[in-house]
């Protein structure tokens, strides 16, 4: 699996304005809908599903990274958005650090394998401090996509 298999280019936001967990999830889910990931009419349902998932336990996995996600019937395939917050957002992360880098994922209900493969791909690459730092400092969606495409070409 590659980043470009599931990250929708139009859903990358390097200037997140939200300062709360729900705000970030709303902002990124809206980006995903705007990029054609799912119908706008499903937006509130997707946001609610992601928030309910967060109530079961944070997806802030440490190192300034969070992977909010849900299964949702409106997703025809695994889709994802990327968000960068310069100031960071409190996500109740495992290491209590603020989160600067978000990968929001929505997957069809019947394909858990795709979700696990995406997590594997994301986390294996983000263990590279240089790559992770460059993503957190990226100042445009184009820069993020360039970094993701370059990462896809590396074997980790």
């Amino acid at each position, binding site marked *: 699996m590659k980043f470009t298999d599931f990250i929708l280019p139009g859903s990358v936001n390097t200037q997140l304005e939200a300062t709360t967990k729900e705000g970030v999830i709303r902002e990124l889910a809206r980006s995903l809908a705007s990029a054609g990931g799912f119908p706008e009419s499903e937006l509130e349902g997707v946001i609610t599903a992601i928030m309910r998932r967060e109530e079961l336990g944070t997806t802030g996995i440490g190192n300034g990274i969070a992977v909010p996600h849900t299964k949702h019937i409106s997703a025809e395939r695994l889709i994802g958005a990327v968000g960068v917050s310069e100031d960071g957002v409190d996500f109740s992360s*495992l290491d209590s650090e603020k989160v600067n880098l978000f990968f929001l994922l929505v997957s069809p209900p019947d394909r858990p394998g795709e979700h696990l493969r995406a997590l594997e791909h994301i986390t294996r690459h983000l263990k590279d401090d240089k790559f992770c730092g460059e993503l957190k400092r990226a100042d445009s969606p184009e820069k993020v996509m360039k970094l993701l495409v370059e990462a896809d070409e590396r074997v980790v």
Partner: protein
Amino acid sequence: MVTKELTVLNQAGFHVRNASAVCKLAMKYSSKLSLSKGGYAADCKSCLDLLSLMAPQGTKLILAADGEDEQAATDSIADLFEHKFYEDEFAAMAPPDL
């Protein structure tokens, strides 16, 4: 050093919530703890590392514990795996999720 083979029994595989549970538990022990698959070893005290294991239902992982509390750490992490990370308790709270 203690090693034990563990199997991912839950249907959704070893996902974020499970990795977080293992990570939180591992942090309580001083021993060095790792889960490995196919020669790839993940530090149990790093959720980022654990999620890179890619372990769907049925995957066998090797837990290695090395340190003063290695047996206690092995027993408690094995308990999580054997009880499907206690997901049934979560299922009662919300619809099935990842």
